């Protein structure tokens, strides 16, 4: 007997919208979610744009000062152990569960698991450790650890929703939530769980974003309309964002039995390491190339059958080039020409959040029958020769969609999503 994982719930707290309808509109109309920001109160910093989370505010590390849009409810009991990205995650998961027609009480019987991904909260950790140092170890917020370290999402959400199935956090930098979704897929396929909640989230703070300035990975372009332009010859780095996306993944028979709407089937996934550098992608995209091929093999799909690729491309000079070469090796060399775009042109790069955010976008594209365009692309980099990068979103209904993610250390993870039958 085979178990087929399908996506039945989507929740978005992103720079391009806090619900499926607004995200869909942004993707179709290529509306970006960027705004000018001043990190660390320093007008001299060259990083001037971020993918902001409208209606959310975290002016201090004290939860009593935090606010979020009225549409969401965050329990006080839960709030004390959360980081800012935990608040985003709670809001995204509420949406996903409501959309999937699930109430919280139905999650506690052991058939539902929870896989999460975030880098933890450098913002909260910095505060917690500073207090520890300043008081020479005599004081510390009792919730400081669970609100700040990597794992904070699964600690909080598993306890709050009384999850008694599989619970785990994944840490592979910008491939983290793709790993979470991949292993959640396996939990369903192996018959271990009937349902998996997959949540990716990141803070949007100076501690999370400006740290990448040391790597020279961030765009210095102050114009929100062009600062993130994957595959463009003039790209100069990524634009940071935070937020959260939650997916409900269920076994198809279970989902059908309860009449759930199915956005997409997860047809397969794969991963491969670059075996090359701690921080730089392989110059020929070797790991990503292997991850795409393993994903196609896992799904028993030929390259020519793929209609759309949501690229990882973050708008960095080296990373986009590596991915372009990997795409050429997998698709162009096989005579295939899928549509390709990176939605990070609209959202910014959500780090650990990116993989599951873009899987959510792919599920919307399959469900609603469109292909997101390659926003802000004016001068295609010559390294992208032979790739089909549509400048506008297309009213074409894809049947098979590939989603790429790559993280530090050369972790590459891909998913193949299929239109629901």
């Amino acid at each position, binding site marked *: 007997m085979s178990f087929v994982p399908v996506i039945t719930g989507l929740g978005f707290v992103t720079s391009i919208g806090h619900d499926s309808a607004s995200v869909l509109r942004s993707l179709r109309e290529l509306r970006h979610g960027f705004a000018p920001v001043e990190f660390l109160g320093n007008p001299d910093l060259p990083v001037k744009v971020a993918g902001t989370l409208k209606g*959310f505010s975290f*002016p201090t590390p*004290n939860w*009593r000062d935090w606010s979020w849009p009225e549409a969401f409810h965050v329990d006080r009991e839960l709030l004390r152990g959360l980081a800012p990205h935990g608040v985003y995650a709670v809001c995204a998961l509420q949406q996903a569960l409501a959309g999937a027609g699930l109430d919280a009480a139905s999650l506690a019987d052991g058939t539902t698991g929870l896989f999460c991904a975030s880098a933890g909260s450098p913002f909260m950790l910095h505060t917690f450790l500073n207090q520890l140092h300043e008081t020479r170890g005599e004081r510390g917020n009792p919730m400081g650890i669970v609100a700040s370290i990597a794992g904070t999402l699964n600690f909080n959400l598993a306890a709050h929703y009384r999850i008694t199935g599989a619970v785990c956090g994944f840490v592979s930098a910008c491939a983290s939530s793709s790993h979470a979704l991949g292993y959640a897929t396996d939990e369903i396929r192996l018959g271990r769980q009937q349902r998996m909640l997959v949540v990716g989230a990141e803070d949007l703070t100076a501690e999370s974003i400006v740290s990448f300035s040391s790597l020279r990975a961030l765009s210095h372009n102050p114009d929100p309309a062009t600062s993130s332009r994957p595959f463009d010859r003039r790209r100069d780095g990524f634009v940071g964002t935070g937020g959260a996306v939650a997916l409900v993944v269920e076994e198809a028979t279970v989902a059908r039995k309860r009449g759930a709407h199915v956005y997409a089937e997860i047809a397969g996934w794969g991963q491969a390491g670059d075996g090359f550098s701690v921080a730089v992608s392989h110059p020929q995209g070797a790991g990503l190339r292997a991850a795409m091929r393993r994903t196609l093999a896992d799904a028993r799909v030929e390259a020519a059958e793929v209609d759309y690729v949501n690229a990882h491309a973050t708008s960095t000079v080296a990373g986009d080039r590596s991915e372009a070469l990997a795409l050429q090796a997998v698709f162009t060399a096989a005579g295939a020409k899928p549509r390709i775009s990176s939605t990070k042109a609209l959202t910014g790069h959500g780090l650990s959040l990116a993989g599951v955010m873009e899987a959510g976008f792919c599920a919307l594209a399959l469900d609603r029958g469109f292909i997101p365009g390659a926003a802000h692309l004016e001068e295609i980099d010559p390294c992208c020769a032979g790739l089909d990068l549509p400048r506008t979103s297309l009213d074409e209904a894809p049947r098979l969609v590939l989603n790429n993610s790559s993280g530090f250390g050369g972790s590459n993870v891909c998913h193949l999503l299929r239109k629901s039958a």
Partner: protein
Amino acid sequence: MKPSLLAPVAVPTVRDSSLRHLPADAQDAFRRFQAGGDPAGLDPVLFAILADFMPRRPEAPLAGLPGSTQLIADLGFDSLAITEVVFFTEDLFGISISNEEIVRVRSLADLRSFIRQKVAPPTGR
């Protein structure tokens, strides 16, 4: 308008970060106590601290509850929230509370008398 969430923040002390969240009557009561007032006037401060750290928002004003009300069984406190109250209270009043003392405080009346005794000026000759 640039969002302020990205501005640097000073690491707050417990008193700085939380006293301003307490109701005005509690802040006034604390200032009166600081100015040499009677520890018996501290009830509004204690109730405000408890309400601020309770895992669930109190359904009724704590001041109206009987002294026998249990912190854990009746008000829903857990060990983490009690630890938060202890740290806050220690910093606010400049006192030290041991783990042995914490476990003896179970009700509102216990807490009230414990704090009054802790913050009272020494009476020895």
